[in-house]
């Protein structure tokens, strides 16, 4: 029950944030970010599962998969969209560095909270510093892709 509530809240909050805070002129950038992040993190999720780093005891599609659906279809991509939308353009290295860390740590805190209070996710031999690092790598890949893509957007 808790799990369902968390998922419903995650859906509502993500959709509300996306609809409310994405500036109109950044709509397509936000879209491509969302799409790209969900694909990358799906692979990330699959690898974590194959390597036995993580389990998802409570799942939306219990029979079809051992993977979580919403966390990587919606929540992570939403983080990704705001990571790109709020990216400090033309700012110093330190500011960019902080930006990366804020989002990587934010994602990790979300995962720590849902691990603690629900059975949506259980981490095995996969400690939080390693997760922060893997989130940093994913955010970097996302940033590279989206900035390349943006060159063809007006």
């Amino acid at each position, binding site marked *: 029950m808790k799990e369902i509530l968390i998922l419903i809240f995650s859906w509502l909050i993500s959709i509300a944030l996306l609809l409310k805070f994405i500036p109109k002129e950044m709509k397509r950038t936000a879209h491509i970010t969302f799409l790209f992040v*969900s694909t990358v993190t799906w692979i990330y999720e699959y690898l974590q599962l194959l390597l036995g780093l993580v389990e998802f005891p409570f799942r939306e599609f219990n029979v079809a998969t051992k993977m979580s659906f919403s966390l990587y279809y919606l929540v992570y991509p939403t983080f990704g969209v705001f990571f790109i939308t709020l990216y400090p353009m033309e700012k110093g290295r330190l500011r960019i560095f902080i930006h990366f860390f804020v989002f990587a740590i934010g994602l990790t805190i979300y995962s720590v909270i849902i691990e603690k209070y629900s059975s949506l996710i259980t981490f095995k031999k996969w400690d939080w510093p390693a997760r922060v690092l893997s989130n940093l790598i994913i955010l970097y890949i996302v940033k590279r892709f989206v900035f390349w893509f943006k060159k063809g*957007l007006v």
Partner: protein
Amino acid sequence: MNFERWMLLGFLVLSITAIFKLVPKEKARDACVLFLFLQMISWPAGLFVVEMGWIEYPTQLLSISNQYNRTSFAFEFCIFPIVAVFFSLYYPKKAKFKGAIIYYLAFTGFFTFCEVILEKYTTLVEYHGWKWYWTLSSVIVSLFLNHKYYLWFKKRLVKVEG
């Protein structure tokens, strides 16, 4: 590795090669939009039909795949999105209603035909109460949505080098 797995690998290599060889550089971003958006449709749709027990993929690329995820990675995340890329990039813009219908049916009909053959003669895909016309109609709907989305997205895409 058994013969069917080689076949699957062959389809994957073929479709990936096709996308790199046949999509021109200046259409790279168009292809990304088409490829990525289709996954957003095929991912939940694939999970849903497997969850309902309508379709099964007994032989997957890795023998352990089905222990983790019973939907078809090859189909939903690779082959179908690549088909969708070609569908929209070669879409006949000038076609009238009748031409569009023929184009849709030719693409989706061929796709469905291939799946039916695979269902019949291999264990790559098995239908349990699923019918070919459900594949046909769901592929038509997916391609239609994908194409409409692409047309919207394209309004802000410009040609650039690299």
